[in-house]
């Protein structure tokens, strides 16, 4: 065995040992809770507004169902997310792993400058991923603004995938350092959230 090889082997052993120690130290413990009723959380708030069709405040943010008139800072404004009877159809290149489906929404009554982003999740509990949005400008500059969310899907999905889309409304401009995905919608630092009904997305075969 050459010196180089011996050094390499020693290095690898040291690295393995360090990795084992780090793995042993890593990992955070778990905690939980039990009760006779649900804990108020962002997930239960999203669940509530979808089922009740209204707006609810949770920890300083307003969550609204599609079509419900906002309260608070954005009072009188609303976002309508395209209602769908059928699942969204994911369009994409067959060889690609990902595809997208367009989901339109309109905004009305916003009297102050706002920015719009969109996020999607499979469940009310997240995680949420930011999705691309495309604004369709009206030639006359009036009427409701129509925006389309490019809802991402996976071409290898064999069954319809559940989906909830959220329109994130920011007063002014959104924060610069937004994460691409987050456990909760509030992690996007949003002022007002509109959520769609529970939808599904399918990939044509």
């Amino acid at each position, binding site marked *: 065995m050459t010196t180089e090889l011996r050094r390499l082997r020693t290095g690898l052993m040291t690295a393995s040992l360090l990795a084992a120690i780090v793995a042993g130290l890593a990992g*955070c*413990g*778990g905690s*939980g809770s039990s009760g006779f009723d*649900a804990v108020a959380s962002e997930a239960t708030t999203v669940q509530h507004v979808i089922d009740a069709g209204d707006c609810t405040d949770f920890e300083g943010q307003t969550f609204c169902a599609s079509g419900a008139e906002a309260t608070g800072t954005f009072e009188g404004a609303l976002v309508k997310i395209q209602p769908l009877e059928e699942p969204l159809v994911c369009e994409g290149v067959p060889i690609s792993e990902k595809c997208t489906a367009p989901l339109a929404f309109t905004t009305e009554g916003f009297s102050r400058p706002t920015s719009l982003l969109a996020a999607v999740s499979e469940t009310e509990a997240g995680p949420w991923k930011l999705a691309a949005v495309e604004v369709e400008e009206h030639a006359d500059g009036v009427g409701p603004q129509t925006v389309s969310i490019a809802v991402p899907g996976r071409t290898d999905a064999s069954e319809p995938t559940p989906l909830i889309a959220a329109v994130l409304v920011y007063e002014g401009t959104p924060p610069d350092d937004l994460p691409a995905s987050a456990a909760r919608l509030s992690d996007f630092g949003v002022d007002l959230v509109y959520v769609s009904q529970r939808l599904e997305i399918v990939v044509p075969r």
Partner: protein
Amino acid sequence: MQRRSNAPKGIKDLFYETRVLSGREFTVTRFAKEVLSGAVDPVMLGYIEKGKRFPNEALVRRLATIREEPVAPLLAVLYRDRMLYAFGRELRRALHDPAAVEGIADADLAVQVSRAIAALPDDGEWITTAKWRAQIGVAVRDKSKGSDVGRVADLLKERGLVEQAKGKVRRVSRHFVATTLEERRALAMEFTAIYTKALLDKITLPERAAETHLRNHYLHIEREKLPEFYQRLEKAARSLAEEFAADAGASTEFLNVLIVGTPV
């Protein structure tokens, strides 16, 4: 013989484990006669080990001597079990539940659920299903009931609290809501067991008093602010739990923090 329990033990468990873990393969009859010097009838000892009868205090004192342990903690277990039994009997009346009272065993489902949730990392990291099931197994007092482990795992999966894939499991949510009659009864018994133990430890066992925190905070509050108060209390408790949660090990305790707020 000082032992740390992995699961909440009833007085029946203490009698059973003293006989079985003595390593001398005592039958109930031999144990009653040779070790307990005929202080109890073997049939009655069998009932005590199965939780169908409570021992008297003299028998518990004798057990403490055999185990070479102080008597006060064992008596505290007996008092707690009697209180739980009485509470369980009244609870079933309140719930219009005709099933037989099993005392501390009634809380088992809720205890196993809490162990199962706490065994999963708060950050949603995947762990092996085998490791997780072993953690749930710690809370199964009767090791012959292996099906309890699968039952708890299935329940949490059905409620959307956990996600399983390719031999691994991770948490999706952290709060279990008791919905069925059995779950509500089990949770009520667990809450009562936690409170009763805390109270007895605090007032009857000076050496254990320091490891239990028991306080009543009181205030006048605007009725409409109650929801906000509870929400913030919940948030603070959760934040603390997540900050201090450690991997289970020889140096850790499974801490239960029972929070009650109610207008009187």
